[in-house]
Structures are given as C-alpha cells and as structure tokens.
C-alpha cells in the first residue's frame, strides 16, 4: 500500500512518497504540488504539520481530515476514477490560506510509482 506523507505548512504542501522497498524517498513540492496516486488501490496519507492546523480536503474524495500539530492523523483514500482533482486547505491557516491548494492525479495502476521525468516535473509517474 502506498504511503504518502503530506506535510502542510503556511501556505503550501510537501509530499513525501515513502519508499518501503529501501529506495529513496521522493519529495515533491511545487506551486501547486502534484500528487500521483494509483486508481483502485488504497493510499494512506499521513497528515503532518509542524506549525498551524490545516485540513486535507479534496472535494471529489468526499472526505476531509485535519492536520494538527503533535497529533498523528492519517486518511486512507481509494480513488475509483482516473483524472485530475484539486485539493484545498480547509482549515483557515492565515494570510495566504486561500491559495493553499494541491493537485491530485489519479492514474492507471500500471504506473504506481511517481518519479521525475527529464523535464523535472513530477506529474508523469514512471513505471514501477
């Protein structure tokens, strides 16, 4: 099962793909950062914050959970349709809260592993 650390900070996100097979972790940032997850498989998102409270909310996922400092929250999602979805911070977190968003791309399960392409983007996953 894929595990992704979602680190919220004012006012964006950092995504860390935990490599459970001994490989390197893959850290994704960006404006907005893009998350790639396989369709039809559960993905565990560890919600981590070191500063203020945020909330992970992709409206199309029909679920939402808060980031709270020193509280270990996680959310498990199983996307059922491929496509691109936008996620927004749903807990007011300060001045630029309104632009704290991220993209989620749900891809066919042949490409479960995200990776970097030659152009430097993290959108297109490599085959795992």
């Amino acid at each position, binding site marked *: 099962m894929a595990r992704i650390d979602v680190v919220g900070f004012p006012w964006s996100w950092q995504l860390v793909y935990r490599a459970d097979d001994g490989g390197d972790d893959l850290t994704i940032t960006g404006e907005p950062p893009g998350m790639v997850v396989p369709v039809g498989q559960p993905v565990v998102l560890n919600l981590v914050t070191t*500063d*203020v*409270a945020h909330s992970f909310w992709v409206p199309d996922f029909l679920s939402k959970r808060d980031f*709270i*400092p*020193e*509280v270990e929250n996680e959310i498990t999602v199983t996307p059922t349709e491929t496509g691109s979805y936008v996620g927004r911070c749903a*807990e*007011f*977190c*300060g*001045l*630029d809260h*309104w632009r704290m968003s991220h993209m989620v791309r749900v891809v066919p399960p042949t490409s479960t592993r995200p990776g970097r392409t030659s152009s430097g983007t993290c959108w297109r996953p490599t085959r795992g």
Partner: protein
Amino acid sequence: MTTVAERPLVAEEPREPERARGLLAFLTTTDHKRIGIAYMVTAYAFFLVGGALAMLIRTELAEPGSGLLSQGRYNEIFTMHGSIMLFLFLGPFAFGLGNYFVPLQVGARDMAFPRLNALSYWFYLFGGITMLIGFLAADGAASFGWTGYTPLSSITRSPGIGGDLWLMAIVLTGLSGVLTAVNIVATVVAMRAPRMRMFRLPIFTWNMLVTSILVLIAFPTVTSAGVMLFADRQFGAHIYDPATHEGVVGSPILVAAPLLVLRPPRGLHPRAAVLRGDHRGPAGVLAPAGVRLRGPGLRARSRSPPCRWACGRTTLS
C-alpha cells in the same frame, strides 16, 4: 406651659428618591424590562455592524483581488463578522427577549437577581465594544477565524493586540451569558407566582429555561478556553503549545476541545446549537399567533422523555 414644639405622631416617611430619567435611568436601572430592551437594542446595533461586514465580504468576493480589501483585512473582517453575529447578536438578542418576558410570564416582579442582570448587560456591552475596538489597533482586529484555533491564534502567529481584545471580549460576553442563564433558571424555578406550576408556563419560558441550561453547559467551557488562551498569549502559560517546556507538553487540541466537546452529532458548534434553540422560543410563540393556530403544545413538549424525567423526579411541577 410647654415650649416643646408640636410633633407629628407618625414619623414622616422617608421620601422616595427621585426617579432617574434619561441616560441616568439607563445607566442605573435594574429593571428587567429596561435591561431587556437595552439588550435587544444593543444586539441589533451589533447585528447591523456584523451585517455591514458581511456586505464588505460579499463586495470583495464579487470581484476578488480588486483591491477593496487587503488579504489581512479580509481575514479580519470575516473573523469579526462571525464573532459579532455569534457572540454579540444571536445569544444576547434572545436573552433580551428572555429578560423582558420571562419575569412577566412566570409572574415575578423582576428577575431573581436584578443587579446581576444589570451586570450581565454591562459585561455584554463592554465586551462587544472591546471586540470592535480591535479595528482601531495598529495590526487590526483579530484575524484567526471566529473559532480561534491554536496555534494560529498564538502570540507568535497572531501577535496583534486585536487578538487579545477579541479574547477579552469572548470572556466578557461569555461571562455575561453564564450570569444571565443563571438568572433565568433561578427566576423560572424559584420566582413563579403561587400556583404557576411548571406545566402552566408558556412555551417561550420553557424554551428560555432549556436554553439557559444548555448555556450553562456550553458557555463556561468556551469562556475558560478564552481565559487560558489569553494566559498563553500574555503570560506564557504554554497550555496550547505543542512544544515541550520543562517536561510539560501542551496541546493545541485543547482549544478545539472546549469548543467542540459538546458538539451534537449533526456537527453544530454547541454555541450554534444553543443559539438555534433559543430562537425557537419566540418562533414557537409568534408563528402560531400569526396564523391563529395553537402552536406546538406545551403538553406535547412536556410529555417528551427528557421533560418527564426532569419534572417527574423533582418538585418542579
């Protein structure tokens, strides 16, 4: 022959002090009707202020980024809009109605504690002014949302004095609400006229009683959370600080817990639930009167299990 002057047989009654008029009457009154009216007028004034802020929000959203409001100012305005509507309008307006009508409906001369009643009003008025004064502060009013979640509302994240004014306002208005609720409960329970049994009380008074009991459950937690957050900000109490200080760990969830611990299943804030409830009283009276029907009967409501439980085991009725 006597030189003693004649004296009246009965000592002259001390003259009643002259009744104050105008502003002095307003400042010194302990009369439940006057205080009730003062509550409603003040609450309505705050309602207009909160409504004006709502208009500012909508104007900005009609053309986002048009420069009408800066980001920070926008955050201040929606924070203050929520706070004003919840803490300075909804509850106090209902309490104004309660102040006016509950003593009349139970057949009492006044509330059980008239001076406490006046004190509640002044706490409320100055609490509201304290909240609004935040707009005059150099860094503006509170801008961390009306829920005031830590760590965003901590002194490092929101250093402005507007946050402290907001917290003091929460404490003052919360105290006002608690004292008024105590007053209403005492009035309904202890000040009823002879033979005015609980089940003869009008539905409005029942509603104010139940609302006041809910207030007594919900408001002290919110008020004390405000005091603790103020201590965190000003005296370094570290109650809500997740970092470890000399082996003691605070928790930011503590500020959410008092707000949410009483959250009913449908996700309403306890305060919101209370406030929704306390406007059902007037609605339960006015709506049936408007259509000349008998409203939801007191009997029907009083036959509900909680009422039966409460009234069956005490001497209330």
